[in-house]
Each structure stands twice: as C-alpha cells, then as structure tokens.
C-alpha cells in the first residue's frame, strides 16, 4: 500500500551550462585558438632543444648540459634549499593548522587570509626588505642559502597553507583527538599515530608544491646572488640558448606533472567551493586579503 510518495523534487538542473547557449562553433574556435597559444611554445621549445638553430635532430643540447658540473651543483643546491623549505614548512604548518581546526576554528578564515599575504607583496619588494632589515645579520644567515629557505617558506605559503588546511579540514580533528584520548592515548601519540597518517596526502601535496616552487624560484635567489638552478639556467641562456631551452622544457614538465597530480587529487577531494583545489585556492585572492589590506 502506498501512501505519500516522498519523492525528492526533480532537479531543475542548475549550472551555467544550460544558461549560456553558447554555440558549438564559438566554443571550438575559442578553445582551439587559446589551446594553440598554450601548445605552440611547448612544441617550439621541444623543436628548438633538439635542433638549435641548425638543421637535423640532435641530443647534444641535453648531453652537453648533463656533463656540465655546474648543472649538477646548482641542482643540488636548489634541492637542498627545497628540502630545508619543505621541512620548515611542515614543522610550522602542521601544528598550526591542526591547532586552528582543533582549538580555534573561529580564526580559520583570518589565518587563511594571512597565508595569502605573500601574493600581495611582490617578491622583489620582499627581497629589498630582507636586504634592508637583515643586511646586518651575521653571515651564517644572510651569507648562506639559509635565508632563501627561510623566505621560500613565506613565498610558498599561499600554496602550502591552503593545501594543508583543506587536508586537515577533511579530518574531524576534534573527534579524532577525543576518541584517541578516551582510549588513553597521549596527545603526542595521537598526533603521531592518528593525525599524521591521515594527513599523508596533504603533506605530500605540500612537499610537491614547496619543492617545485623552490626549484623554479628566480627572483629572490638571483637578487641575493645565489646561483640556484633557475639562476644557472638564465646564465647559460645568455650564451647557449638551446641548452637553456632544453632544460626549461624539462623543468616545465617536471613541475607540470606533479602539479597536475596535486590539482587533480585535491580538486576531487575538496569538492564544492574549492573547485580546482589547492592551486586554485592559492590563485584566488580572496576578499579577506583585501579586508586586511584596507
């Protein structure tokens, strides 16, 4: 016997798709032309790296670069800086984000806004400020790449903070902690055995983003006169264009692949509001930044 059928109302189908009625021709032309604009430089780089300005394919650009000791030393330097940055970032951000979600959820948006501040202040200006305010510090900080790692933590913050923040949000910290405590675990054990394993993907995202950032950063490194990988690329670019292009291409691919992975993983996870995930979140200067700036 059927009484009221509590059927959910049929969805009237939201979304702009039905709204726009944009013609197929228009769509194809727009996406085609813009797609070309983004593909051509990649194709050009590939061709240039194999042929230089001469005819015939060769891998000489690649082999020459790989045999350059400076290539390896600068790469190694950048990797070291990257590692330092990653460790510092995790050390700073894991406790912070966990704390915010656990003890002070009300200040979450303020913290988010603060994390976006580095997008507002140009890195050239930050460098100026570093020289002005830390110029007189002992050489162990200012004279070594340590200062780079310290500043990269800041510069990568818009990307890293949001990534970790959304990962922590996916956990129900409060319940996890309370469950752990009711089972008699200490806070340290809870952090180590419960929270961290659950934050794996968020931590991984931070590692990838921060590391990729460090490998590519040019402004601060060159202005503070450190020959990191990116700075080295520009230097050889002055004289050996095809080598520089060869490695730019590799560098691009090496950033794009992990970035795509992170984007896909996080956009799948963070759902509704944060379409495009962590990267988009970083890209969107939210209104809070401005409220702060005002």
């Amino acid at each position, binding site marked *: *016997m059927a*009484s*009221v*059928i509590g*059927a*959910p*109302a*049929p969805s*009237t189908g939201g979304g702009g798709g039905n709204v726009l009625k944009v013609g197929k021709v228009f769509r194809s032309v727009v996406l085609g032309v813009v797609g070309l604009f983004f593909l051509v430089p990649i194709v050009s780089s590939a061709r240039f790296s194999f042929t230089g300005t001469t005819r015939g394919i060769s891998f000489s650009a690649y082999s020459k670069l790989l045999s350059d000791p400076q290539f390896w030393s600068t790469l190694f330097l950048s990797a070291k800086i990257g590692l330092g940055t990653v460790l510092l970032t995790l050390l700073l951000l894991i406790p912070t984000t966990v704390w915010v979600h656990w003890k002070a959820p009300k200040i979450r948006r303020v913290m988010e806004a603060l994390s976006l501040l580095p997008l507002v202040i140009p890195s050239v200006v930050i460098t100026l400020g570093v020289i002005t305010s830390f110029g007189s510090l002992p050489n162990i900080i200012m004279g070594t790449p340590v200062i780079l790692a310290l500043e990269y933590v800041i510069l990568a913050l818009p990307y890293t903070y949001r990534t970790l923040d959304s990962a922590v949000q996916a956990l129900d910290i409060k319940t996890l902690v309370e469950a752990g405590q009711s089972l008699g675990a200490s806070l340290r054990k809870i952090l180590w055995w419960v929270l961290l394993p659950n934050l794996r993907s968020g931590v991984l995202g931070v590692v990838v983003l921060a590391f990729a950032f460090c490998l590519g950063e040019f402004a601060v490194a060159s202005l503070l006169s450190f020959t990191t990988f990116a700075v080295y690329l520009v230097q050889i670019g002055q004289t050996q264009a095809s080598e520089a292009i060869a490695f730019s291409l590799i560098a691009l691919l090496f950033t794009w692949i992990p970035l795509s992975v992170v984007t896909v993983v996080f956009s799948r996870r963070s759902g509704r509001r944060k379409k495009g995930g962590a990267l988009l979140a970083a890209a969107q200067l939210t209104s809070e930044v401005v409220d702060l700036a005002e």
Partner: protein
Amino acid sequence: MESSKTAVKAEVGQGDGKGQGVSVRLSNVKRAYGSVLALAGLSLEAEPGEFVVMLGPSGCGKTTALRALAGLEPIDSGSVYVGGKDVTRLPASKRSIGMVFQSYSLFPNMTSLSNVEFGLKVRGISATERRRRAHEMLEMVGLIEQADRYPHQMSGGQQQRVALARALAIKPEVLLLDEPLSALDAKVRANLREQIKQLQREVGITTFFVTHDQEEALSLADRIAVMNNGNLEQFGTPTEVYSAPATDFVASFVGNVNVFEGTLLDKETAVVPGVGNFPYRQSEETPTPGGSAEILVRPEAMTIRADSDGEYLVTDVTFLGSNVKIKVERGDTSFIVIQGSSDLDIVSLGSKVSLEAKGSAILVRRKAHL
C-alpha cells in the same frame, strides 16, 4: 506572432486584475529525452479561471508539461492553446504566462521591488507606472515592508511570495507554479498554500500547480491531473480522484488504501470475508463477477470493533486530533482504519479486533499475479 505581442501589452495595460481567466488546452503533446518518453501525448483542458493541480511522482512528466505550457521546453509534437490561440510556436517571452519556480528564482542582484518590476520594465512600461504596480503587487502578497530587501535577506517563504507577485505583476493570462512550496518547512508551507489559493480565487486567473504532494493537491485543486510515466492517469475533482480513482495507480498514489482479497457477488457488490459487503463501481480493471478479486478500500470505509475472537491484531494507534489512525495486522498483511477519536477506548495496542464494512470500495481489480 505580432498580434499576440500586442495582446500581451494590452493585457498589462489593463487596470483591474479580475476576470482574466482564459481556457488552456494541451493537445496530444509529446516530448522525449532520448528514448525516455517524458510526455506520451498529453491532452488536457482547463476551464477559464480553473485551478488545476498536476500530481505525480518525480519523473512522471508533470514538470515537463508545465514547462511546455510556459514555452520553456520544446515539444516534439502536439499543440498548446491559451485562450483559444495556438501558442505552440511562441517562445516563452512572447506568451502571456506567469511562472513561479521551486526556489531561488528571484534575481539576486535586485531588490524585491525591482524583481517585481522586471517584467514591466522589459515591456517598456514607464518607471512611475511600474513602481505603482509593483507596490500594489507586494502589498497584495503582504510584503510591502520588504520592498528594498535583496532575496538573500528574506526567508524562503517570503522569496516565494515575491516570486508570486513578480509573476502576477505582468497580468498574465495563465499562472504556472512549479512545486513552489517544496523547499519550505511545513508551517510556512501550509500558510503559503492558503494564501495562494485565496489569491487565485481573487484574481480568477487560470492556474496550473505542479506537486508530488497529494495533500497539497487535494486541498488546492479544482481539478487534479494525476500523471504517471508521461501519461495522464486521471483528470477530475479531488473528490473523484480520491473516492473514485480511475486506475490502480491513482488509487494507490492518492491517499491510503487497504487491499483485501475477496469475491464479487455481482456487478455492484464485493464481499470481503469477515468484514462485509462493499458497493463498487465497474471499471476497466474489474474482473467478471463470481471470481476472486482484490478489493481496494479507504481507511474511512470501515469501522473497528473490539472482539476477542477477532482476526485482526492492533499493532499501532496514532492520535490525529479528531481522528485516530489504527494499524491492524492479519498474518503478514497490515491494514489501516481511521476512526473518530470518541472510539479511542475501543482499541488498545495488542488487542484483538474485527473490521466491519461502512462505505464503498474505491476500486476492484483482478488478483495480482504472483
């Protein structure tokens, strides 16, 4: 096309809102999405000023029918007539039809007043005239104080009232409401339902109201169009639909129904063993007399009697105010009886009772094959 455009303008220009009712006719309207038939040749005619409720489960085609009427949904074949005019080929903006949607249909960047003014504005009506008219409409729905509010500053019920005012502001020939109450909570819902009904009576506009809520349908409609799988199952007054359902589907979709096994004594009387005789009407589902059949009986068509030898066991008693709903079981089949509250003391949970026929069966059908 030209003529109807001027007709719309003329309508809007008229001062009084009375007697706008026109007849509306859907004739053999078909609409398919791929292989799914949303409307399988729907024909329906509403009298001028009539309040028609289209009732059915989700996906039955009722919303498609409404949208086809509004001109928002293309149809594959068939015709739509409003006031005798064929509007099948007219786009939505050229039909004189006011529509209220499920929710969120107010333009978020406009105040209630601007929302109500919108239809008049795009018709090129002067600012003072449309302001006057919009105020009048907001007053009618009792929201004149909210004139300067934005939609997000109002409750769902208020938003729907503004949407109603907006739809009526253009003095449409027909008013369409697509589940306008489904997103509201129960109390607001009942309130607004009354308001809509009253307003419709006052304005006298031919109205189509889509819902999946049978209670809403029964209380609002002059006539109910019960739909299922793109077909019109029955089109009749609430009383007809409730007490004389045309089909099995209507019988079980509208209201509660008990299914008894029994036999047909003759062409007028069905017998349920141990309960008694129920008069019934012939329908296409009725088997020939003599054989066994399933007899569908409303909960009100029986009385309950305390009886220690009774075959039925009381498993649930729900107090409904003036009535009591009693659930009884025999074997693994359950039945529902509705009694006046004065009989409450007859039954208690777990006691044995017997049932007695009081009214008619609503439908008699062949036994379901197992």
